[in-house]
């Protein structure tokens, strides 16, 4: 049983002209076994929601609550959130020169499970996870994200999702910049994660393309820092046909 509950979340960032409110009261509940898609035009606050839940210091929460199974997420540090079971697959994964993928994965796994993984099975697990993402075994000796292609970065994120096995995964525009083959590989990875028991997924995307491979249970349309519309998968079809004009139009 795991539930990520976001209630009336308000988030600001500091700009040269002072604080600017990006999220203006977001309410969303992701129960286990559910996949929620958040769609919306650029600048609507989708990524801000993802980074705020993960605890990026750039974003200041000015109101509302976020809880995971009743625990106050906003009180936790970035790494505590991850250890509590949250995972953010980033749109722009960060390079960490000199730190190998294998060292990084082992350190992360050890942190999250509280003990070092058993060496024998772990190497097999890592190679298996990389292989499923079409990443060969030399990949683990490369520096984290350094010199990775756009597709490799995203596949590496999903390999981490597989190995770290969180309760709730937030995928921030994981589909952007992927060709169709890579998109399929990444989608299959996400679907394998969804098949596990009690997993929640919050899938943030600008395009409907990925929703052909990952079927959401709910679709939320994000406009100007708020949920402007909600529905089932059919809402994605409607967005595919008509775009965001309707919502943007209503704003004016």
């Amino acid at each position, binding site marked *: 049983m795991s539930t990520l509950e976001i209630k009336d979340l308000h988030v600001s960032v500091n700009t040269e002209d002072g604080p600017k409110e990006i999220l203006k009261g977001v309410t969303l509940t992701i129960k286990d076994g559910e996949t929620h898609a958040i769609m919306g035009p650029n600048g609507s606050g989708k990524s801000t929601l993802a980074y705020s839940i993960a605890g990026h210091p750039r974003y200041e929460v000015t109101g509302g609550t976020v809880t995971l199974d009743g625990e106050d997420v906003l009180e936790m540090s970035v790494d505590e959130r991850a250890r509590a079971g949250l995972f953010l697959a980033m749109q722009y994964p960060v390079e960490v020169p*000199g730190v190998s993928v294998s060292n*990084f994965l082992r350190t992360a796994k050890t*942190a999250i499970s509280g003990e070092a993984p058993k060496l024998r099975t772990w190497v097999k697990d890592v190679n298996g996870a990389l292989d499923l993402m079409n990443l060969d075994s030399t990949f683990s000796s490369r520096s984290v994200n350094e010199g990775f292609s756009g597709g490799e970065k995203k596949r590496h994120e999903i390999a981490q999702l597989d190995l770290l096995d969180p309760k709730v995964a937030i995928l921030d525009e994981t589909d952007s910049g992927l060709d169709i083959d890579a998109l399929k590989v990444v989608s299959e990875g996400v679907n394998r994660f969804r098949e596990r028991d009690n997993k929640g997924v919050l899938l943030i995307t600008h395009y409907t393309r990925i929703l052909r491979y990952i079927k959401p249970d709910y679709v939320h349309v994000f406009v100007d820092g708020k949920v402007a519309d909600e529905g089932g998968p059919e809402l994605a079809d409607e967005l595919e046909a008509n775009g965001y004009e309707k919502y943007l139009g209503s704003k004016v």
Partner: protein
Amino acid sequence: MSAVATPVEGALEVDRVDSHLHPEGSFNVDDHPVPTGREEIWRFTPLKRLKGLHLDVPLSGTSYDASIEAPEGVQVERITDGSLKGVSGLVPWDRIAARALAEAGETLAVTIPAETELDRPVFVTLKGTGTDEATATHAVIRAERFSSATVIVRFEGAMTLADNVEVVVEDGAKLTLVSIDDWADDAVHVGHRHIRVGRDAEFKHVDITIGGDVVRHDTTAEYSGPGGSVEMLGLYFADAGQHIEHRLFVDHTAPKTKSHVVYKGALQGEKAHTVWIGNVLIRKVAEGIETYEENRNLVLTEGCHADSVPNLEIETGEIAGAGHASATARFDDEQLFYLRSRGISEQEAQRLVVHGFFNDLIRKIGVPELEEQLAATVEAELAKNVLKELA
């Protein structure tokens, strides 16, 4: 004073260049006035902490034990007639170098004979046993034609030392010189290294600076023929109150030569101070050369100070490439966020980033027995601040 005349240099017509990059040298101590600290070459150095090395204190101390472990075939000699002073083309370019060269009683000469390829390193260890009296030493490392060797010089314990190390890499030879300043906290070391790189020769300098109160190294490389290459890899870690200064000068005195310099340092603790001066001169004769120098500093705590000054002076446009980079920064917030978003604690994330920062460099050293040891050294340094809360 005239430059040291050797037939090879004469043939290359290395002209005098008016620039602070290469002041005119002299073997005569009196030609070098006592520095005041306002001179360009002294302005970063805390003269008061040099225990008089720059003044007139005698340099006749013997508070050290030297040991050398050399594979068969290597010649090790102690020469007392002064005949090897300046053999690499060194003409002391500051007062401490001149004093140290004049007062050093003997020369430790290590020679790798022509065409000898060593399969294990030569180890030289200098262990200081007290800082009260100042000491001058002189060493000459010569890799003869087509030889190949690694020499590891380790400084430990505490002493007040002014030394000159001269290196001659003859035509076609390959020499890796590893210098490790692993001093006790109160050591003072002002060192001068002068390297002459022969035709098609390869010289690699691995320069590790960890301990000591004040450590200042002047390292100058020049070429006696075309096609030579110099790689300088530096790693330093300055703790509270420590002053670590590296002054590098690569003098491209021959065509088609290469130099690649990367120094990386970390600073932690109140008044940790590092200085990196990276000077490169490309002379008129030095057509078709390639040079790149880079210095990166990672500032781990408040109260540290890193100076980083690359200089490139180019007298010919006919070069293959020349560039430099310098960056001094704190931890990258985005890197830490990425690692922490995977459950890794803040300290552990910092530890990973610092190891990663140095690993890039350590991997290039190419001396296996050293690489593991250096990773452990980095870990031990981190334990002083970054990892304190983890313990």
